[in-house]
């Protein structure tokens, strides 16, 4: 495993959004990922990449 592959949690606090739990963003290599728990309990991760980014992953 290369050093850049370790997930690095940020210092942002967890938040609630429309009943879906949202964790603070993490980084993994060049990616930023945001974790959510869907209304039915399933996990969802939205990934963004600095070279392709247009969506910050905020939920509706």
């Amino acid at each position, binding site marked *: *495993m*290369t050093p*850049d*592959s370790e*997930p690095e949690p940020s210092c942002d606090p967890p938040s609630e959004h*429309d009943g*879906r739990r949202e964790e603070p963003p993490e980084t*993994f*290599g*060049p*990616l930023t*990922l945001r974790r*959510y728990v*869907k209304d*039915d309990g*399933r*996990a*969802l*991760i*939205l*990934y*963004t*990449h600095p*070279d*392709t*980014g*247009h*969506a910050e*992953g*905020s*939920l*509706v």
Partner: protein
Amino acid sequence: MVWLGRILAGACPERLVGAGRPAPLTDAQVPTRTGMSELRYHELRGEQVVYAIDRQERTFLPAAEHCPLCPTRPGGEPTEIPAPAFEIAVFENRFPAFASPHGAAEVVVYTDSHTGSLGTLTHERAQALMWVWRHRYAELGARADVEYVFIFENRGVEVGVTLHHPHGQIYAYPFLPPVPAAELAADARLGGCAVCELSARELSDGRRVVYENKHVVVHVPYAARWAYEAHVVMRAHRTDLLECEPAELDALAAGLQALVRGYDALFDRVFPYVMAVHQAPTGGAGRGRGHVHVEFYPPLRTAEKLKYLAGSEQGAGTFISDTLPEESALALRAAIGDAT
């Protein structure tokens, strides 16, 4: 007598999956069929069979306006991804073949655009996808209930696709499936890394190599089972995506995209395939052994004709092919060149 895998009765009745070598159970111990997956060991074949009966209910080829993998537009129909836009999304499959505490099943959505393919993604997006695969391999592979992380894509109704939106899947198996087990057996048979050995043979021969870049070689294997089967192989021995340097991940994305674009150019049509990412097992005796490579199994043998797995393939386990790998490699190499 019914033979099942390990049963955790009552622990998680909606997500019950057996695992490991089978233990005999009486009929009374057979779980009910509703809402659970079940693992049975096929003694004659020496392999596991998964019964995921809830998958019968899964969404089947919905119209684009009802696609569950599209973003949820404000005021629009809710989808699996409750965001108005996204780049790459991964979520737990609503109809899982495997679920915690006996593995996992995830969906990887490549883009929020309903149309396109791995081949039509921007290269930057394809590179990002390699990092997503790496992340999921790391996270799922670290779990105690996961022995093998399998990233794959089914493309086209010819291979059973139920959603057209560009996406792949991940199954995190609680056991080592037969194909990666056979690759480990090949290592033992060849006295070292079989993928390294076979890739060296292909490069030496050259007739079946269809694409190369600095870190990746794509070839039609010497004993291809499918007419246009191709393997995308890391040149350096890397057991999994976590061992790859960033430049190697970029090269892998380039190799995959070149191949998929070449496939689509070959017969000037969307080319169906099964794509299988093979990496080292993350648990069990095979842990850490392997060589990351991506195998493609396209069912087309001509623009209009499919290869079916029939008597010899299913009943005897021997593929009969009507196309020589050298001939298909020649055509595929030209198609990749045309598509570049």
